[in-house]
């Protein structure tokens, strides 16, 4: 048995010694944190794929410099994400940490990473907590601010003069934000506002109450499995033909394969979709399909855009060593994205177009189609409370 301990000890010492090799000077190190294992791997895996695809498209070199990418699986746990980020900063000595799907994980690592003078680039999560007062000069978001989509939906439904809306979201921070964002732009009357349990499976009781309230439309935010459950049961209750359903982050490329006809005809809002006409997007979609055999969702597009953003910024700054120079480059650089070009707000969140999407059955293929621009060059509403000026 003592042999085993000895082997363990030597193994540990060896790995310590190995890891202690000094790092070469002009090299870019990027840590990409996403969720690979567990149920949420369905989002994280395509993001990793898209990031790899992006790296291929820039010849494996960000800004023309030798680049090493380290992938990490956060297991969707805040403390694991924190530990991973810490490891990437202190052990791997990365210059940039990118990825991050979940708002709560981003909130968990935001402070420690930005304080360590490492850049943090969110490829998805955009919670209000880091968009306003707590914005940071080392943090950039290349995806969206969470409130943008509900704001878009509120605007659209106001424009359409839809009144008497019933709204519903899970009872947690993002759920409240999605209702708040909706109300910010929606000027009509709200006849019911319901918060459901996070991860709820059966919505029959809510559907009964909803029908009794006789609204003229329903707006929901129920991401992932919750959305599948609700939309299916909504269709089964025979309501989809009677009361139109509008949603954000609920009917998308991930839930459509499980929803199929139950979701057809419902409206959603998004900042990107595979049918956008620009060249970057077309190339991304076709090469992604070729390589991975699937149509990418917006999560993947954002990961791809992250590569394009880093590539352009590092090229402009000429390296990653001078953080101030790199920051200046990140703020102003024009880079090709799957969403066309967009600029950053003073809080480092994108100012971008928001599109209306409808779920359709395209010859047995269930997809969402763009049905026009709702808001163009839309900036988030937290930017004004961010003290950063540049």
């Amino acid at each position, binding site marked *: 048995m003592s042999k085993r301990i000895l082997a363990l000890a030597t193994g540990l010492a060896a790995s310590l010694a190995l890891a202690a090799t000094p790092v070469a000077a002009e090299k870019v190190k990027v840590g990409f944190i996403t969720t690979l294992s567990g149920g949420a*791997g369905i989002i994280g895996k395509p993001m990793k794929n898209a990031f790899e695809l992006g790296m291929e498209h820039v010849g494996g070199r960000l800004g023309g410099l030798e680049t090493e990418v380290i992938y990490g699986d956060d297991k969707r746990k805040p403390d694991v994400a924190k530990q991973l980020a810490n490891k990437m900063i202190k052990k791997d000595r990365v210059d940039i940490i990118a990825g991050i799907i979940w708002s709560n994980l981003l909130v968990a690592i935001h402070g420690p990473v930005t304080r360590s003078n490492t850049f943090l680039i969110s490829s998805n999560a955009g919670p209000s907590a880091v968009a306003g007062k707590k914005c940071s000069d080392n943090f950039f978001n290349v995806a969206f601010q969470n409130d943008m989509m509900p704001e878009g939906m509120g605007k659209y439904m106001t424009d359409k003069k839809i009144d008497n809306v019933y709204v519903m979201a899970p009872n947690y921070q993002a759920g409240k934000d999605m209702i708040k964002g909706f109300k910010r732009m929606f000027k009509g009357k709200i006849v019911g506002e319901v918060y459901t349990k996070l991860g709820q499976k059966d919505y029959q009781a809510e559907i009964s109450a909803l029908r009794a309230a006789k609204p003229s439309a329903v707006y929901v935010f129920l991401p992932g499995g919750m959305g599948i459950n609700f939309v299916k049961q909504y269709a089964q*209750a025979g309501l989809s033909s009677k009361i139109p359903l509008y949603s954000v982050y609920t009917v998308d490329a991930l839930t459509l394969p499980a929803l199929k006809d139950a979701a057809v005809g419902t409206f959603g809002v998004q900042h990107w979709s595979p049918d956008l006409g620009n060249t970057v997007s077309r190339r991304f979609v076709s090469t992604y399909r070729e390589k991975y055999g699937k149509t990418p969702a917006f999560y993947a597009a954002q990961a791809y855009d992250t590569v394009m953003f880093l590539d352009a910024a590092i090229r402009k700054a000429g390296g990653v060593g001078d953080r101030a120079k790199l920051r200046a480059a990140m703020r102003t650089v024009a880079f090709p994205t799957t969403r066309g070009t967009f600029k950053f707000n003073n809080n480092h969140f994108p100012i971008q177009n928001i599109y209306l999407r409808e779920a359709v059955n395209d010859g047995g293929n269930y997809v969402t189609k763009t049905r026009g621009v709702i808001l163009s060059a839309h900036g988030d509403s937290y930017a004004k409370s961010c003290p950063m000026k540049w």
Partner: protein
Amino acid sequence: MDPLLLLEQAFNGLQFGIMLFLIAAGLTLVFGIMDMVNLAHGSLVMIGAYLATTLIAWTGSFLGGLALAIPATFAVGALVEVVALRTLYRRNHLDQVLATFGLILFFNEIVRIVWGPVSLYSGLPDYLMGHVEIFPDAPYPVFRLVIIAVGLSVAAALYLIVAHTRLGMLIRAGASNNEMVGALGVNIKSLFTFVFALGAVFAGLAGMMLGPLTSVEPGMGEPLLILAFVVIIIGGIGSIRGAFIAAIVVGLVDTVGRVMLPVLLRAFVDDAAADTAGPALASMLIYILMAGILVVRPQGLFPARTG
């Protein structure tokens, strides 16, 4: 609140309770007879749902798929019992909790590898898609009525088996003293395997009926598992009757509570506070109920084991 709506909500609660009963029935049998805590019972719900979804797609018929999925789930249950759980009966509850916790990890990952991480589509045939007006102006999905019917038939069948057959006698005897049953020359091993597989079928049946309602995905059984545990603890471990009553009570309290509480609270505090506290309290409600019952009756409402 409109009394008709309240009645409809009570009906929803009943349907949810029946679903919980299907899951809890197997759990309480295994608990009562083998004295075994099986956290992996929720995985059987998931396996039932996956098997049914796959077999429905394969046969092209809803009923045909279910007809194949039921024996398949029975087989999976028997296999799990023989390979993994049999050795755990003589262990203490702690060992059982941990080993079956390991089983959950294993099952979820197996499902993810075999069927992929994406939720499966599981629809309904047209003849189950309709509605019935149970109350005026309240069209109710036919499929949910089917669930109630299936659940009630299972409950009735179980009652007949337990109360009036030799197998039921063994089950009852096993629940109160399984060593004695073994000493009397009953092949206790195959009885255990059968009972476990039967429980798996009930859980799988719940999964099969959940498939068209909810998302079929890895880990779908765990939230239900904890509720099922609450049910059998309230009902008294090993008692089918207890599980049935407790399941209905939990279903009603959970459903009616989560609809009514925010409305009730609005009468006392301002809307924003009610919107926050209502759902919070509603999600805690059944745990409060369970804690309350256990404080008054530490053995649940209908304790089967009296010795």
